């Protein structure tokens, strides 16, 4: 089945070499369609039932047949093939889509299998092209076929990029034959589970779930107003501190269990590996695989990786943990891909160093931006204090509250603001190594961004009124990778210009003031 793909086609005729999705998708898609329509259907049925008292039983088989028909459409209408130069995809019944992507523009190939996919031995293939928003989805192929497709696409891409097209076919055979010896950069270490409770990114999900559950809370029989009030009075009368303590401990325990379980599910069997390029010295691909129930496999061409970002959220930093992302061009929405689970900061810097092929950018001490920048951090953070204190004074005047309220608000905000500002200044800084521009930022989360100088597309020097008076500027390196820019905030103006000039020597020199 995979054989036709590996043979380079010389003259593709319009009807040759087309392939379909895996036939097992005929089982998956109808289930998916049913699931999508389940909620509206239940609401509809309940609505009909309560209004007329009749249960439209005939709806059931109609819905089933409909789901099967709609669900089999993707399989019937989707076809794809690989020609010498392009990946082509035809899909759709009424709105026909014909998508072609040049092979040399294919930058990443991701595989993903949900539990249902895995039971059936399938994998979803997602192909990233140069255009940020266009990602080609094939849902789904047989797992071995999808891996073969990934291999072929990435190998073809390098073949399409080769300077001499004459011996492409030969090279392609070499690539496919040598079995891709890959270097494993890092594997999951279950000792890292200790970082799970300190990573709050999953908290939003849990909060959402609690919110949904509380919707049902209303219909519980014992939760009416009276029993709540009497219970509350009993609790307050008894020992409020004990109740608070128990609630806190229970919450912490539940959070620990949930976060550890989530970490294990998401990062099960995590491997980050580097597949070498076709020739010595050529960049290859970076491949990440992980997941217990839903397995993901993300592949990014290393030549597209322009830098890395090391994040240390405040809780993780306390226990010595960190997260690492790569900044790449042409992969998905933001181009920022998390390549490590929360792990020891040493591991993150080590892997980051390996990806950048230089340890210095993530280890080098940053150049601080000086007292003026520190003052600006404090001024910026105290604006909130001003606003909240003014609001508190207004509230006190109008509602006749105690004088202690504005004082308390002022003290709390001022202290928090000062602490935040100090943290912000401590994380602020920049550095330059031979190949990378490094920027430090963040207040509670410490972020260090290292961008390959090759990836810098231009510079922006911004100064508002206050920055101009303080002799500071915000230097922005624009890039096509990651968040599209790297910001060095509040750097002394002349130092910032010198930094940009040192990074891209030819570019700025004609525009420099030569008098100094």
């Amino acid at each position, binding site marked *: 089945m995979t054989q036709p793909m590996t043979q380079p086609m010389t003259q593709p005729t319009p009807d040759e070499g087309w392939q379909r999705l895996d036939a097992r998708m005929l089982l998956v898609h109808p289930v998916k369609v049913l699931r999508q329509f389940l909620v509206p259907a239940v609401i509809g049925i309940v609505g009909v039932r309560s209004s007329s008292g009749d249960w439209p039983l005939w709806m059931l088989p109609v819905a089933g047949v409909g789901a099967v028909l709609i669900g089999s459409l993707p399989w019937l209408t989707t076809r794809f093939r690989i020609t010498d130069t392009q990946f082509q995809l035809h899909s759709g019944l009424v709105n026909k889509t014909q998508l072609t992507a040049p092979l040399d523009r294919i930058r990443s190939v991701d595989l993903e299998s949900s539990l249902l996919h895995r039971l059936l031995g399938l994998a979803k293939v997602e192909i990233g092209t140069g255009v940020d928003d266009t990602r080609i989805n094939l849902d789904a192929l047989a797992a071995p076929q999808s891996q073969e497709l990934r291999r072929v696409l990435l190998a073809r891409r390098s073949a399409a990029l080769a300077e001499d097209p004459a011996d492409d076919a030969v090279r392609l055979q070499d690539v496919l034959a040598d079995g891709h010896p890959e270097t494993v950069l890092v594997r999951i270490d279950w000792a890292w589970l200790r970082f799970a409770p300190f990573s709050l990114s999953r908290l939003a999900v849990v909060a959402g779930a609690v919110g949904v559950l509380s919707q049902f809370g209303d219909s519980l029989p014992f939760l009416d107003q009276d029993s709540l009030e009497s219970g509350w009075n009993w609790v307050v009368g008894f020992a409020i501190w004990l109740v608070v303590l128990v609630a806190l401990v229970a919450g912490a325990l539940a959070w620990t269990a949930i976060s550890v379980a989530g970490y294990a599910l998401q990062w099960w069997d995590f491997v980050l590996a580097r597949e070498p390029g076709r020739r010595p010295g050529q960049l290859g691909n970076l491949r990440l695989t992980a997941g217990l129930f839903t397995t993901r496999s993300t592949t990014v061409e290393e030549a597209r990786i322009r830098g890395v970002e090391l994040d240390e959220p405040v809780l993780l930093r306390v226990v010595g943990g960190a997260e690492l992302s790569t900044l790449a061009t042409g992969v998905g929405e933001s181009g920022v891909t998390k390549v490590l689970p929360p792990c020891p900061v040493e591991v993150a810097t080590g892997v980051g160093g390996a990806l950048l092929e230089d340890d210095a950018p993530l280890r080098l001490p940053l150049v601080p931006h000086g007292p003026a920048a520190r003052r600006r951090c404090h001024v910026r953070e105290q604006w909130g204090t001003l606003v909240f204190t003014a609001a508190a004074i207004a509230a006190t005047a109008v509602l006749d509250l105690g004088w202690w309220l504005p004082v308390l608000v002022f003290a709390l905000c001022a202290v928090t603001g000062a602490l935040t500002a100090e943290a912000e200044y401590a994380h602020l800084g920049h550095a330059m190594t031979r190949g990378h521009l490094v920027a430090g930022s963040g207040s509670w989360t410490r972020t260090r961004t290292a961008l390959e100088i090759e990836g810098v*597309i231009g*510079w922006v020097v911004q100064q508002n009124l206050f920055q101009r008076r303080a002799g500071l500027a915000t230097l922005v390196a*624009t890039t*096509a990778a990651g968040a*599209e820019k790297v910001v060095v905030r509040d750097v002394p103006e002349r130092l910032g210009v010198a930094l940009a000039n040192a990074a891209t020597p030819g570019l700025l020199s004609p*525009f*420099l003031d030569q008098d100094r």
Partner: protein
Amino acid sequence: MSSRPAIDAALREPAHQVSPRAIGYWRVGAGINLTFWVVAAIVWYLLSPHPWWAVLIAVAVVAVSAAYAVVMPTLRYRIHRWEVTPDAIFTRSGWLSREQRIAPLNRVQTVDSHQGALMRVFGLSSITITTASAAGPISIDCLDHEVARRVVGELTEITSAAEGDAT
């Protein structure tokens, strides 16, 4: 200059100013804005009850708009400058805040020119140059129409000669 890597450097001004007619264009724009606020304030004053503090706010809004119309155009004309070399484009914009942008021409992806209805009255055009970075578009506002056309022509010629996909 010494061979030691400099830790101290400053950007000079870009060479060219935009068209002097830009002042008139900006002033007319600000004047329209001012007229809107004055009319709104008068209508409100006539139609609804007005405590003293609301009158104060209205007067402040009108005063700020008037000051903007008087001060902004000349200040902005002094700040807005641009320069195109065979290798790079360099602009400065803003009036209270300032922004200097530099992009190498071999990374430029598109060159657009734009002329609004009011700009046409003043014979002005704006140019926008985009690179592969969403953070990096550079625009030169309010060039003389002829100058804009010449610059677009030059830029298109230079950038179409560049190779690679500019990322």
